[in-house]
């Protein structure tokens, strides 16, 4: 009201609500004018701990994750063997080459095959095993310990182990087949282009199933016992309880597992590199192994970076798509 009295030359046509509107900004203003120095000082003082607490993490992530990520895209524009100073800017030439590179598309196809079979084989087996362990009471401790073993092994140890298992002459698989007089079934498991990828996928599944089993076990452990008891009192059978109630409860966990399996398959490297190195004749080549050979055997650092960058874009795209398709999985896991 006092405002209006001090400014009598203001147009009279102002609607009723206006004085208040005029008051509020003025009021707000005085508040701001009175304290900005103090506010800034205070916020600066509050900023110091934030910076101190976040700085180490940000530093490591920028130097060893963000910078390499961006640098990869930059390197993809070069023609360079990685050794001397003979780098040459070639623009998008590497990317055009990639688009026409049969081996790259083949390796992407292999990555997708790996993803498909990983989900198809690992999820059901891991789920069944989790249910088995969840139901078996006393013996499960021992089983859990033994089931868990593959997760503790390094990929190199596993790769070398299974290379010997698959060995056509001295390996136990062919040895077993011969012993039961199925000599016709013996194969050169890793040396045959038609079999190599499948043989390695089997080992990848063997290695990863315990991981997903643990994931599902954790999901089952959070299942409220009262629910199944109540359903049983209502006359539901074991199988009904499993299919109708428990599986529904696990939905979120299963989505997470599928997402992890798909992303993991698209960026897979270890066992293929160790067991077949993408061979024979590129039959088991993956994007990551192709990238690795391009850089560290053919010394085409620029083109290798192009493959790496493409891989990053594909993984991000697929991750985003999977996330979008399965909606927000995180909230449901808890």
């Amino acid at each position, binding site marked *: 009201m006092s405002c209006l009295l001090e400014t009598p030359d203001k147009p009279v046509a102002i609607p009723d609500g206006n004085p208040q509107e005029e008051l509020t900004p003025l009021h707000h203003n005085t508040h701001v004018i009175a304290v900005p120095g103090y506010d800034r000082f205070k916020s600066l003082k*509050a900023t110091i701990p934030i910076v101190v607490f976040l700085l180490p993490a940000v530093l490591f992530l920028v130097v*060893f994750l963000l910078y390499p*990520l961006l640098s990869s895209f930059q390197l993809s524009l070069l023609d360079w063997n990685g050794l001397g100073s003979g780098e040459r800017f070639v623009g998008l030439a590497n990317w055009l080459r990639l688009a026409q590179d049969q081996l790259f598309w083949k390796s992407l196809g292999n990555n997708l095959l790996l993803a498909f079979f990983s989900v198809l084989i690992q999820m059901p087996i891991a789920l069944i095993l989790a249910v088995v362990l969840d139901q078996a009471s006393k013996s499960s401790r021992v089983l859990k*310990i033994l089931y868990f073993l593959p997760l503790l092994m390094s990929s190199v*140890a596993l790769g*070398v182990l299974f290379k010997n298992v698959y060995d056509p002459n001295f390996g*136990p698989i062919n040895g077993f087949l011969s012993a039961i007089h199925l000599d016709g079934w013996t194969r050169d498991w890793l040396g045959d282009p038609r079999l190599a990828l499948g043989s390695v996928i089997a080992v990848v599944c063997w290695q990863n199933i315990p991981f997903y089993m643990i994931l599902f076990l*954790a999901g089952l452990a959070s299942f409220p016992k009262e629910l199944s008891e109540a359903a049983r009192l209502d006359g539901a059978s074991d199988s009904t309880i499993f299919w109708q109630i428990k599986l529904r409860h696990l939905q979120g966990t299963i989505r997470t597992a599928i997402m992890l399996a798909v992303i993991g398959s698209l*960026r897979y490297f270890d066992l293929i590199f160790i067991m077949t190195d993408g061979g024979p004749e590129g039959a088991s080549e993956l994007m990551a192994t192709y990238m690795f050979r391009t850089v560290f055997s053919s010394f085409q650092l620029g083109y290798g970076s192009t493959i790496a960058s493409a891989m990053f874009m594909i993984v991000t795209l697929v991750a985003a798509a999977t996330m979008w398709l399965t909606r927000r999985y995180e909230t449901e896991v808890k």
Partner: protein
Amino acid sequence: MSSSITPVSGMNARGSWFTRISVPVLGLCWLAVTTLPFIFVLMTSLKTQMETFSSSVWALPEKLNFVNYIAVLQGGFWVYLRNSVFVLVLSIVLILIISSMAAYAFARLRFRLNKPIFALIVAGMIVPIHITLIPIYLLTRNIGLYDTPFALIGPYVATALPVSIFILTEFMRQIPKELEEAAKLDGCRTFGVFWKVFLPLSGPGLSTVAIYNGIGLWNEFIFAYVLTSSSANRTLPLAVWDFQGQYAADIPAILTVVTLTSLPLIVAYAFGQERIVKGMMAGALKG
């Protein structure tokens, strides 16, 4: 489990004969699939090279024969082990300190970019580490750390941080505010609250982070392979790789290396089984 409480429940309800048979059968089948390769490795490592050529793969070794173990243990195995322990301890200590500090900031400090930065870091979990390989290789060479155990610390810590920060932030959010306020009344500043209240109360979260990352880093192969070249500076997973080249066709010797390199984690697992499974479970769910 529950059958001891209520007689109706458990596996004695109707329709369960199938479950009663199929559950143990499936369990045993997978047990065979899991353990047979390990039995094969252990058995072969106790054979001589001649035996692997002359007798069947599944034949027991003629006698317990530790020649291979002695040869491997005298052939530089300890150097790999020492490097592995050094890299692991240093990495895990750094991961724990750095990620708990960041997690505290995200869980408790108020600032405008809190959510966006946190989301960005968590998104770092899906970055395929192989894409960082070439630039990190160049960087390591340029700063003169190539072929030293120190070359591995940076990438190891950085790749472990997103998941670790995520786990610890979730954990610290659940620590009651009252404890924090009580400490502030006692005159603690931000750092004091972190050090005296949050760090001690985050024990279980920290051990989850240490176990989950510890197993992964102990077995890490690709960075170790690219960033180091001499056997004096390499970690245990590369022992298998290097010995494989060295022994070529000596299958028992190679499988002895496989056994020996896997042993430390298996022994650790035998002692801390419960803890490790829990750590992996929590890590798997969050990762």
